[in-house]
């Protein structure tokens, strides 16, 4: 069973040299901490920055320099600022190679729900709908089941959708799963100590298991 850092660490392995990556709030943000040295990656922040650096040292926070989560950040040599319209332009034009974000539910055909729970205060979708509608490669970091133990990997999402047929891969505390073009969660790896059976029980959507499923190596 993976903790949040474990999920982030596993996702970091999907980040290839030369990628431009957009990281959502939550677990995805942690992915940046696990990108191996020697892998050159540029982080895009959709409020208008390519080349997001780490948080500033205490006392060096700059109100004019924040990320899409409104956190104070820094730049790196080669960073570039641009206006929001160009930022979403490059997102729509699929120049960002990988988008990693959280989800409340994912369906077996790759639909994602992560912005709204009926009956609860709606805060808005921010840039998530633009990102999921455009990104070529979307990995979702999420919990496999909710607090009641119910699967969040579903045949069909029950919550209002953020985007359709867009998620390519899901990494949970239990497993790594690819979403196949024709639909279905294909089990790729098990988390340490998690059995195929446990994953089957926690997955409501169609689960595809072919051959022996390896335990992931972190």
């Amino acid at each position, binding site marked *: 069973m993976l903790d949040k850092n474990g999920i982030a660490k596993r996702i970091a392995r999907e980040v290839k040299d030369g990628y431009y990556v957009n990281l959502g709030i939550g677990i995805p943000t942690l992915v940046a901490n696990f990108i191996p040295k020697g892998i050159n990656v540029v982080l895009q*922040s*959709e*409020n*208008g*920055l390519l080349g997001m650096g*780490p*948080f*500033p*040292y*205490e*006392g*060096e*926070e*700059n*109100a*004019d*320099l*924040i*990320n*899409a*989560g*409104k*956190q*104070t*950040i820094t*730049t790196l040599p080669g960073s570039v*600022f*641009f*206006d*929001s*319209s160009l*930022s*979403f*332009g490059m*997102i*729509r034009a699929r120049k960002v190679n990988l988008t990693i974000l959280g989800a409340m539910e994912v369906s077996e055909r790759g*639909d994602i729900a992560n912005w709204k729970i009926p009956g609860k*205060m*709606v*805060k*808005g*979708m*921010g*840039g*998530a*709908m*633009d990102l999921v*509608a*455009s990104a070529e490669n979307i990995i979702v970091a999420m919990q496999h089941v909710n607090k009641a133990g119910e699967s969040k990997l579903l045949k069909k999402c029950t919550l*209002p*959708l*953020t*985007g*359709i*047929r867009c998620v390519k891969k899901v990494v949970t505390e239990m497993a790594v799963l690819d979403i196949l073009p024709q639909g279905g969660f294909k089990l790729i790896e098990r988390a340490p100590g998690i059995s195929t059976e446990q994953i089957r029980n926690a997955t409501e959507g169609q689960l595809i298991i072919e051959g022996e499923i390896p335990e992931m190596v972190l």
Partner: protein
Amino acid sequence: MINKTVKNVDEALIDVKDGITVMVGGFGLCGIPENIIAALVQKGVKNLTCISNNAGVDDFGLGLLLQKKQIKKMIASYVGENAEFERQMLSGELEVDLVPQGTLVTRCMAAGYGMPAIYTPAGVGTEVALGKESRKFTFNGIEKEYLLEYAFEADFAFVKAWKGDTAGNLIYRQTALNFNHAMAIGGKITIAEVEELVEPGELDPNFIHTPGIYVHRIFQGAHYEKRIEQRTTRKRG
């Protein structure tokens, strides 16, 4: 050059009236037109429709206008940080139109580019698409569905820049650029407040974000608080 300078914020807002639609620059509290917002509170204009990515926090940014119930309708992508906003929305006092962030900024930009409508895939298959015209296009071999989204019609755009010259040319600093440029070009009348107002010729003409032709009034703001919403740091060492 044409001189766009006004004496102060009150002169800049002289014809701002109840019931108008305004674009307000900034992302969270970063790059918001602090002086203009304060003056709008003072002026007491009501029933505003505000197009802005966020709605400020309770005691800063657009939150100040919400406290005084000056906003009738909010068009935004994310409104999470504001208890008074939540109260007014749940009570039905405040209309809220949530728009995907890229759609929001592109609808501002479209106005500035003289494009009455644009196509975007954002929101296809979601409740955002309800009642909207959609259509499939194939680009670079990929067929996709797109929504038709209309350019915003805003009576005024209120933006904040780092420096500006009296001809209205604007430059922004770092991520305070955010929505400000797209709104500066998208407003029918654009009012810019700047941290530093300089003479024509002092800004490098190669590196101006918003050409002065889009800016109708400009003034140097004062007392910038530039509040930080999420102060995140790392330790030295």
